[in-house]
C-alpha cells in the first residue's frame, strides 16, 4: 500500500480548511486516475465510470477530515471508488441487462473449455463477468481481482490483504464456487 507523502497531507489539510484552489487541484489531479481505475477494474462503460469517478471525488472532498494519511491519497480514493462501484452493482438488478447470443454461449462454456477469442473479448460477456465479481463479498472480490486481473501470486495477495496464504486460497476457492453458480444461472436465463 502506497504511503502518504507531505504533498498528500498538505493538500488534504488545505481542502479540509475550505481552500477552493486545493479542492480544484485535488479534483483535476485525481479524477482522471479514479476514472481509469474504475474503467480497468469493472465492466462499466465510460459514462458510468465517469459518473462514479465524480461521485468518488466529491465524497472524498466531503469526508477529507477522515483521511488520516495512513495511505496515499491515491490509495484512499481507490478504496472509496471500490465502495461506489460495489454500491452501483448492488443497486442494479443482479442479472446483466444485455446478454447477446455470443455472451450467453461464453457463459455456458465458461467452466467447460477455453473460450474462443471472439467470445472472450465480447463486451457483454466482460460486463457479465465483472458484474458477478463485484457482487462477491469484498474480500473475495479483492482476492479475485488481485489474482486474475493483476496477476498477483498467493504470497503477494496475502501480504497485500494482511491474511495468510491459506486464508487467501480459501477466499479464492469460495469466490470461484460462487462465480460458477452465478454465471451458470445467468447462462440459463
Amino acid at each position, binding site marked *: 500500500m502506497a504511503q502518504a507523502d507531505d504533498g498528500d497531507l498538505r493538500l488534504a489539510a488545505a*481542502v479540509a480548511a*475550505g*481552500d*477552493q484552489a486545493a*479542492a*480544484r487541484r*485535488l*479534483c*483535476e489531479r485525481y*479524477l*482522471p486516475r479514479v*476514472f*481509469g481505475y474504475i*474503467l*480497468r*477494474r*469493472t*465492466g462499466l462503460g*465510460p*459514462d458510468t465510470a*465517469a459518473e462514479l*469517478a*465524480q461521485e468518488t*471525488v*466529491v465524497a472524498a*472532498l*466531503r469526508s477529507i477530515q477522515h483521511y488520516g494519511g495512513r495511505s496515499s491519497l491515491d490509495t484512499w480514493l481507490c478504496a472509496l471508488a471500490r465502495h461506489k462501484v460495489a454500491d452501483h452493482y448492488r443497486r442494479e438488478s443482479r442479472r446483466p441487462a444485455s446478454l447477446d447470443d455470443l455472451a450467453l454461449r*461464453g457463459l455456458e*462454456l*465458461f*467452466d*467447460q*473449455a*477455453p*473460450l474462443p477469442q471472439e467470445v*472472450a*473479448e465480447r463486451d457483454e*460477456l*466482460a460486463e457479465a*463477468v*465483472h458484474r458477478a*465479481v463485484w457482487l462477491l463479498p469484498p474480500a473475495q472480490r479483492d482476492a*479475485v*481481482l488481485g489474482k*486474475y*486481473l493483476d*496477476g498477483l501470486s498467493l504470497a503477494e495477495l496475502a501480504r497485500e490483504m494482511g491474511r495468510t496464504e491459506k486464508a487467501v486460497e480459501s477466499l479464492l476457492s469460495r469466490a*470461484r464456487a460462487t*462465480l*460458477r453458480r452465478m454465471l451458470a444461472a445467468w447462462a440459463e436465463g
Partner: protein
Amino acid sequence: MSTRRTDFELNLTTVLRARDRRAADPTGATLPAGVLEAAVEACLAAVRPRDRWPENTRLYAVLRAQLGERPYRAFLAVGAAAAALFAVLGPRALSWLDPLLRSPF
C-alpha cells in the same frame, strides 16, 4: 476436476484482462468530454460552506477579512455598530443577553 478449474481460471483471467488491456490504451481511458469541468464545479460546491450561519454570509466574510488585515479598525467598527444599536433601541438592544447570562448553561 482440475481441468475444469484450469479452464474456469483461464477464462476468468482472459475476460477480466480483455477490458484492462483496452483501458490501458491511452485512447481507451480518456474522460468523456465536459466531465472534468462538471466534476470540478461539483467539487468546488462540495467544499463551499453550506447551511452554516454565519460563515456563509457576506458580512462574516468581510469582518473576517478586516480582522485579519486591520483588527483595530474592525473592533472599532463592531463597537460603533453595537453602540449605535444601543443608542437607537435602548437597553432592549441588549435584552437578549439577560436570559443568556442567567442560563445555567
